[in-house]
């Protein structure tokens, strides 16, 4: 039984709890960081930092909790496709909004 589970199943690398703990702590630190940063006036950097921290946290969840780091190329391609499509939706819709009354931005 175990040979065959090792055989197929996206390499079936079992991620150790130690890694999970490290990621958990990183996520908790990241949360504290982002809350703290929102209380400081950094001008236009605020949203950028908030999104950067959120994206880092999301990346850690995707890579380690969701095992993408140990998964097939197909899985990574699938995640990439979702992100790409989402960014296309936002950026091309924005292409309209930004360029309307140029003054509104």
């Amino acid at each position: 039984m175990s040979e065959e589970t090792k055989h197929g199943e996206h390499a079936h690398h079992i991620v150790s709890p130690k890694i999970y703990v490290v990621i958990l702590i990183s996520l908790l630190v990241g949360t504290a960081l982002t809350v703290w940063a929102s209380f400081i006036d950094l001008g236009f950097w605020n949203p950028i930092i908030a999104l950067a921290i959120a994206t880092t946290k999301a990346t850690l969840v995707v890579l380690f909790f969701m095992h993408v780091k140990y998964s097939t190329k197909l899985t990574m391609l699938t995640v990439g496709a979702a992100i790409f499509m989402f960014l296309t939706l936002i950026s091309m819709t924005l292409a309209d909004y930004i360029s309307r009354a140029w003054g509104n931005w």
Partner: protein
Amino acid sequence: MSATIVSLPDQSTARIPKMNYLTKENGLLSWLLTGDHKRIAMLYLISLSFFFFIGGALAGLIRLELLTPQADLMATDTYNKVFTMHGVIMIFFFLVPSVPATLGNFLIPMMIGAKDLALPKINLLSWYLYVAGGILAIYTMAAGGVDTGWTFTTPLSTHYVNTNVLTTGLAAFIAGFSSIFTGLNFIVTIHKMRCPGMTWFRLPLFVWAHYAASILMVLATPVVAIAIVLIALERTIGIGVFDPTKGGDPLLFQHLFWFYSHPAVYIMILPGMGVISETISTFSRKRVFGYTAVAFSSVAIAVFGFFVWAHHMFIMGISNYAVLVFSLLTMLVAVPSAIKIFNWTFTLYKGSITFETPMLYTFGFMGLFTIGGLTGVFLGTSGTDIHLTETYFIVAHFHFVMVGGMLMAFLAGIHFWWPKITGRMYPEKISQLAAVVTFIGFNFTFFPQFILGTLGMPRRYASYPPEFQVLNVFSTAGATILGVGYLLPVLYLTWSLKYGEIAGNNPWQATGLEWQTQSPPLTENFTVTPIMDHEAYDYEWLEKQKEKEVTHAG
């Protein structure tokens, strides 16, 4: 009469195989709770045909009204409801699922050498969702209909009508999930369940086309789902997200709506193009010219199709910069479709062409889709679009690609695989007649509409200036002929179930794993997993096989 490639077994001794997917189990529940992709395909075929004729009846009402310049057959409000429901039913409940849910479901596992799709229960769920959505759509019609047009344009649909926007939206939402699950199933199946030796570039182009369409289904459909949710919230609670008085933007809905609805047209056409690749090869006895180009162009259509949606919004108030960008990108998306047409044409060159019914529909597709596609380029050019949009030119354009293109491809596919699905041949002469009648009826119906559009007749109007009447009468006359052309197949295909000639495994001498099995196939498709050791459309391999054929089990 011209040559034919049809090769049937000796009718005096031939029999339908006793064991097949139709006879495996009996009883209504064995159908309603089936996991067999072939049975689910048949369930879809029956329900799709039902919705097609409802949509067709609505089309008949539209054309009847437009016989005269006045809005005298029905009130203008009613007319609005009729064309709206015609659009909703034809798009969401016929065109989007047509080839994928029937032929795709039936054939993809067989074409790749698998026993079923990856997720049979999800497949069945897809059908139930489709039926639920459809029933809701019919309820909407009974409850008074909706009159916003199938596009639910805001702010009309959110603030100015009292009709059943919510139930129609819900029906489309549910049908959307049916589509998503079908696409998801296909992608997993094609990636993970190909038989040994079936590399990507040995797949039939039918499979490539469905793969591309499935990517669109999975990525684009959720966006229209959320657009519908937001409309529902706007109409019920008045959240203000599309309401200018509260700071919302009606165009945001349109962006989200068309983000799906443009890829949707490729969801509709790509599977049809997959059918054409198969028929054109079989009836020219020649491998498809430029297999790689055709395969990649399917994916290219899918990818580029995501970047052009705002060409439906040129006059709606988007910025000039956006008009420019989307117009340029629209030019790009025409290229892969053109590549396919060129490759199919080169497939014909020096082929041994015969004119069985599927090939007649295929030729119809080639001509009509080309015209429809080229007129799409006129519309993608923003300068001309400003004058042609919201006129009958648009109506003609999309009917040429969808009816002249997609519906013809669907009929080509149904006829082509009918022997495999049922074990019987349809009657050739009457089916050829029906194909010709359809082609003639189609041209009479929709070509005048191009002229009407350039002359300025607006779409979605129950009344029009009297000088447009002659062309409208032509169009309605054509629609009557078209109706006959579509009714005939229902009659003779049903007839063929009992009286058609026994087809045998491979009446068309076609390549493809599905033709190596009995007709109708076994529930598990193959008794042992096939091993694919030849290229796609390999007619030499087929010659060698004929000598070693085993006909059927049991």
